């Protein structure tokens, strides 16, 4: 059986694509993926999702989105896509246990937390090194810890972790934060948070003992080295797009993000991408959801046989006169 559309991924982009394509009677099949629900499943209070003035917990928001898409007939399967063949249509998507065919594919595989890439860091994952504050903060009650990074996720993790840790040191390789103003202010006002600026992590000790005892830091301006005694390290230095499945099939930029044009189109007609897998600039729940909606509409029009040129002509009028920074 060849379906109309398969959606890969179940974060805000994938679930919004599922909602819109279900309401367009496309009976979408959504394959959730290993990290079902996406990055918001690892957050606590989301305060910038419009319509929830007091905020909403990330996992609750995702449960709502999922239920809403299901209500309109989106079919969800748990499972991880292991291979795709985009030489169709029909396109083929394979999990460990089954193979599915469709005339259109919407890719919403998102991005996953990036690590520093030190051997000692890898050796100590689960023994003091973590990428998930909400999962592992509990184990660091009363202990000094470090958060690596200077973006919104780093600030959120640092603030959250002060509930457990005796002290949180934010280690950042620049002298200013990239985080939004409101997140910065929260961190600066928190008496349990201090900062190590211009600092690069050279090593996480002590892999030999199987526990984190300190970070070896190098100041990128002065070259001075110092040791920071901590018992836990939370790495929040950004994300890498989950595009391994599409290598050699879809166009990507130098960092592995899928390239899209004219809305959500990839270089293969019938294959669309939305959310963080194709966005290294905005990376918000709301922009991911918005692009998921675009992908569903683009897929619907593609399946209806509306040529892309007609689409672009229509869109051109509204795009002209706006300037969106791309890099």
């Amino acid at each position, binding site marked *: 059986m060849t379906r109309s559309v398969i959606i890969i991924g179940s974060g805000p982009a994938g679930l919004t694509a599922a909602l819109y394509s279900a309401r367009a009677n496309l009976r979408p099949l959504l394959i959730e993926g*290993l*990290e*079902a*629900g996406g990055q918001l*499943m*690892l957050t606590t209070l989301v305060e910038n999702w419009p319509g929830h003035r007091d905020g909403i917990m990330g*996992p609750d928001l995702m449960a709502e989105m999922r239920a809403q898409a299901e209500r309109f007939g989106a079919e969800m399967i*748990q499972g*991880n896509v*292991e291979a795709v063949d985009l030489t169709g249509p029909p396109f083929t998507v394979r999990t*460990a246990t089954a193979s599915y065919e469709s005339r259109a594919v919407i890719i919403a595989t998102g991005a996953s937390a990036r690590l520093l890439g030190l051997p000692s860091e890898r050796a100590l*994952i*689960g*023994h*003091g*090194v*973590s990428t*998930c504050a*909400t*999962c*592992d903060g*509990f*184990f*660091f009650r009363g202990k000094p810890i470090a958060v690596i990074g200077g973006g919104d996720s780093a600030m959120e993790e640092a603030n959250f972790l002060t509930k457990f840790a005796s002290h949180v040191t934010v280690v950042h390789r620049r002298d200013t934060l990239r985080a939004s103003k409101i997140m910065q202010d929260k961190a600066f006002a928190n008496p349990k948070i201090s900062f190590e600026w211009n600092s690069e992590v050279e090593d996480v000790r002590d892999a030999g003992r*199987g*526990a984190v005892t300190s970070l070896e830091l190098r100041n990128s301006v002065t070259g001075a080295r110092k040791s920071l005694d901590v018992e*836990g390290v939370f790495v929040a230095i950004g994300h890498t797009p989950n595009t391994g499945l599409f290598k050699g099939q879809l166009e990507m930029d130098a960092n592995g993000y899928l390239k899209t044009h004219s809305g959500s189109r990839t270089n293969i007609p019938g294959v669309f991408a939305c959310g963080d897998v194709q966005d290294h600039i905005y990376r918000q729940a709301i922009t991911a959801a918005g692009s998921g909606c675009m992908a569903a509409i683009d897929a619907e029009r593609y399946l209806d046989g509306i040529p892309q040129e007609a689409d672009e002509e229509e869109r051109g009028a509204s795009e002209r006169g706006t300037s969106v920074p791309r890099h």
Partner: protein
Amino acid sequence: MASEKVQTLTDTNFEQSVIKAAQPVVVDFWAEWCGPCRRLAPTIDELATDYDGRVVIGKLNVDENPATQSRFSIMGIPTVLIFKGGEIVEQIVGLADKTALKKLIDKHV
């Protein structure tokens, strides 16, 4: 919710049920508040059915069993440890899919 084939492990029964077990034992360290742990739960249930009679599949709540958590220095969950003859033979930190877990278990059956 959990499959009845999944054994509930505790600080009290760990020695008998895991360390002294004749069969390989898969232990899922988890907690109620851990989102990824909840996502791993159905996989653990399925493994318990798939390996019924050959491998013991158990879950240990780290909130309720701090002694075992600290004995194995579990500082991140979900963590899955595979024991054979009382020794740790495999360790997987974070979410893993069923295929990956089966591959590791099959090495020791």
